[in-house]
């Protein structure tokens, strides 16, 4: 579905991504895993087309596409640092969004329980509710690929369980996901394909089974795999 060839990116003299080549399969929930500063968000922005690599090529559905406008038809992207218009009320914002997008998903609104907070000002929402609103925007479309940067930040365990169920139902409807996650336990619960990054370099990629076989003698958690991979 997505192929990256020799992607490198520098900010001033700092190399953030170093010659990354990888292939992300269709129909999977792919997790980009790594500690803070590993280059996860930069990689996500490059895949989405919101940032240009200094070197390398991104191919989506076998087409070489250069910027976001060309990728817009395939993907929906939600950055970690976005703060939706704080002056708006949730209901008011959703009205604007539905009119502008020409699309509304009542089932998704119900799944994310957004009606509960429709009369609240966005500025007054807790982080978890704000994340729900962002998730709604990312998912309220018919695009085949959803790219989310740290989507689980701010959820308590109960909320997380609800959101993971939502992801499963969306995936079974044929959507692919690319998620940047730093919580390895969350990643293991939802992702079925992993890309391990550290200091801008790709350490490994594959399913949990592939990675276990490669780094551990028997099956283990993603955390154990990641630690072993870093030690090598």
């Amino acid at each position, binding site marked *: 579905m997505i192929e990256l060839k020799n992607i490198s990116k520098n900010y001033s003299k700092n190399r953030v991504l170093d010659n990354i080549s990888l292939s992300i399969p269709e129909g999977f929930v792919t997790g980009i895993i790594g500690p803070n500063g590993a280059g996860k968000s930069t990689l996500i922005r490059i895949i989405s087309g919101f940032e240009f690599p200094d070197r390398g090529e991104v191919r989506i559905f076998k087409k070489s596409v250069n910027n976001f406008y060309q990728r817009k038809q395939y993907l929906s992207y939600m950055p970690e640092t976005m703060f939706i218009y704080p002056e708006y009320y949730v209901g008011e914002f959703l009205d604007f969004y539905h009119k*502008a997008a020409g699309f509304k998903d009542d089932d998704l609104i119900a799944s994310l329980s957004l009606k509960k907070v429709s*009369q609240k000002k966005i500025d007054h929402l807790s982080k978890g509710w704000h994340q729900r609103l962002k998730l709604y925007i990312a998912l309220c479309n018919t695009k085949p690929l959803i790219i989310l940067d740290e989507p689980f930040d701010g959820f308590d365990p109960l909320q997380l369980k609800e959101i993971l169920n939502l992801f499963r139902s969306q995936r079974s409807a044929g959507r692919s996901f690319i998620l940047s996650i730093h919580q390895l336990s969350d990643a293991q619960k939802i992702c079925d394909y992993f890309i391990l990054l550290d200091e801008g370099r790709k350490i490994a990629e594959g399913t949990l089974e592939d990675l276990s076989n490669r780094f551990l003698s028997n099956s283990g958690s993603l955390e154990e795999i990641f630690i072993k991979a870093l030690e090598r």
Partner: protein
Amino acid sequence: MIYPLILKEVKEIFRNRTTLIYFFLLFAVIAYSFYSAVDLYSKASVAAIGNPLYATGFEPVPGVFVPTFGGLFIIFSLIAPFLLIRSVSEEKKNNTLPLLIQLPYSLRSLFLTKLLAASMLILVSIIFFIPLLLFWNFMGGHIPWSEIILLMSGYFLYGLFVISVSFFSASIFRSNSQASIFSLAVIMFSWFVDFGKEMNIIPMLNSLSGWTTTKQLKVFESGILSINSILYFILLSSFFSALAYFFFNINIRNRIRHVITIFLICFVLFGLALNVQLKMDISESRKNSFSANETAFLKKSPPIDIEIYLEQTDGRFKDYKSDFVKKLELIKNDISIHFAEGSLLSENYGLFKYSVNGKSSETYSNSSHEIFLVLEEISGLKIERPDSAVQFSGFPLVIKGKWSGYLFVLYLFVFPLMILFFYYRKNFFNRRRKNENWN
């Protein structure tokens, strides 16, 4: 599909609390400027009643409306940037651009919508001057519509310049305060050049001073419809808007290349605009024009060369420029003006030398009457006399009764309350009603 976006951008600007403060200040400044200007005009008019010659100097636009719009100039220059910057910088600060451009909007349409919404603020600010025209009319004042419309257009164009500079500042700086300081510095650069010219601090500023925004705005204030000045504001606003767009655009490579291209295109367009010399005096008093017969004479006259033996800072030259050269430039494109330098200047100081078709003559006088005698002599053409033009009689107006109370009630109570009502209606009642639809 673009309608929700336009509505959003207009809301962003108009429902802001800073906008409330902006309008309260605007009303206070408008009311006070108008009151002062009318009061002064009325007091001065007392002496003009029964004195036709003195009365010719009384014109409503320079006497009342230009000083009143002076208040708007301050508001546009010093307050509006703080409001306008938010429109772009909040989008950057909250990182909401990715959200908007994933909707069926391009970044170009998004940027143009922001410009449109900001232009509405400028337009609404100018619209609040219309009640003053009614006031003036009720008091018996004359309204020269063409001059008023020209004045409003000039301020609208100046407003577009302020918008473009504010957007540019917001797109290059991360923080609102840095962007505000930068935009104020760019907007006030004209004031610095004007001041520098007046004080003769830096001689280089003299050549720049003709192209400052304040100088170009004065063209509109003096009742001259100048395509040159209109193009100046349009090009300057387009230049800053284009720069703002390229810095605002998160999806662009080689920004420097685009910026250089904009510089080159605008440089060429400015060069072309300089050659467009279409100016028309639309003032009722024809204060920027010679008499009809003098104009006919100049139109028939071959190209005129003028050699001036005066410093540009000399008061005599300033009078000469405003009373003669400015009017001459409205009629003839083929005049050339040179300034003498060095020993020639000091030996002949105060002299004006005119050449037409190889014939030259000189005079120390800077009065139009004397100059026309010299030009008649060297061109071999004659000005038809007497001049049949109807003399402008002027519009002195002595206002009796207490009118200022109504003005202050309207601008310090009625309009602010009206704005407050709309603000709370839009921000509170409407939202609550809309949100109830979600239950």
